[in-house]
């Protein structure tokens, strides 16, 4: 098909579309979809520590705020990355809250080491959080992938890795409420290991999930 015929066909079949909302509005929508499962799981599962203990742990609150901020900024960066010609500086937005998050966990590990000695670095496999983790993470994951697919796959790997970071951060934000009494090496290894694994998988599958050819379906010009 020559280019003139393609233009005639595309312009002849054009339908109205709603312009994509700004990244912050899409982030707000994603949070509105992703937070209710978290609240529901907490309501069903309950907290493992008393609210009084939670309120008194200042480091835990800094960690939780940093995790939530990582989720929000990573989601904004992921959505911004699907707009062609946008400012790429937005992609660095999650770096600050992520650094704060890692620092608070590092500080927690150090405090545990001073308090417990070598026992603070002992790891055990805790499978109890697997079901709440899936329950919290399923809706934000589906919502994130669906919303990213509405954008342009300009940099699919970056978009999906940021989306995975946002989702993993929100899951960790919720899980930490169940595991407030844990030694922080467990959080560092299992929770950040989980984030690294999710990001790595996202990096591999991104070109298949966020690809132009999905969107070309139905156009005769493309075969």
């Amino acid at each position, binding site marked *: 098909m020559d280019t003139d015929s393609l233009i005639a066909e595309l312009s002849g079949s054009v339908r109205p579309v709603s312009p994509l909302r700004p990244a912050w509005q899409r982030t707000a929508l994603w949070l509105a979809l992703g937070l209710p499962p978290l609240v529901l799981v907490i309501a069903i599962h309950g907290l493992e520590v008393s609210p009084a203990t939670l309120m008194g742990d200042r480091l835990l609150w800094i960690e939780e705020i940093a995790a939530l901020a990582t989720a929000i900024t990573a989601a904004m960066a992921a959505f911004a990355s699907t707009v062609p*010609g946008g400012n790429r500086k937005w992609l660095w937005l999650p770096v600050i809250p992520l650094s704060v998050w890692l620092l608070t966990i590092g500080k927690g590990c150090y405090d545990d080491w001073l308090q417990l000695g070598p026992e603070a670095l002992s790891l055990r496999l805790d499978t109890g959080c697997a079901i709440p983790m899936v329950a919290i993470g399923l809706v934000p994951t589906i919502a994130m992938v669906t919303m990213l697919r509405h954008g342009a796959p300009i940099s699919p790997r970056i978009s999906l890795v940021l989306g995975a970071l946002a989702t993993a951060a929100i899951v960790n934000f919720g899980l930490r409420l169940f595991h407030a009494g844990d030694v922080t090496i467990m959080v560092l290894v299992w929770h950040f290991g989980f984030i690294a694994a999710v990001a790595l998988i996202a990096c591999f599958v991104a070109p298949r999930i966020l690809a132009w050819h999905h969107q070309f379906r139905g156009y005769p010009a493309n075969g």
Partner: protein
Amino acid sequence: MNGPTEKCDRLGELMCLAQTGDRNAYDRLLRNCSDIVRRVVRRRYPYLPPSDFEDLVQDVLLSLHTVRATYDGERPFLPWLLAILRNRTADMARRHARKAAREVAVEKYPETFDEAEANTIDEAYGDPQALRQAITKLPKGQRVAIELLKLREMSLKEASEESGMSIAALKVASHRATRALRLSLQSRDEYGH
């Protein structure tokens, strides 16, 4: 006079109209974009062959069409278009690199396979004189079949008309003659005569 910024804004306005379903505006926008894309591609990638050149223009137009909802009317249009162009060009370069790494261009495909047994027929016998003598010693039917089918390279139908033998008889005679020649020449090579 229309400067680049005015043109950019005009294209942005056309895209905003296209987002509402205005076909004329969209047609004008796509024609303008195809000109811009051609100009940019010609300047940045002058080595592209003509077929790839037009493929790239169409690819950009299709991409623009599918993600037209991502254009924000408050922002300039050209950076949006050029980001799509950069992405599609990079994809095309990757496709070419993959193709070049995996495929070998050949003028003419070989008619046989690599395996030794598939190539025995094509191997030329080293002593034409001995082959000619061996042919003369064949029974008449086999000799005729070999001469017509192998030496004069006739089709089975032509050889049948020329010799008066049936096609089936020619096939059998040719097969037996080939086997007899192979045995005769092998034994000659083994005994040195």
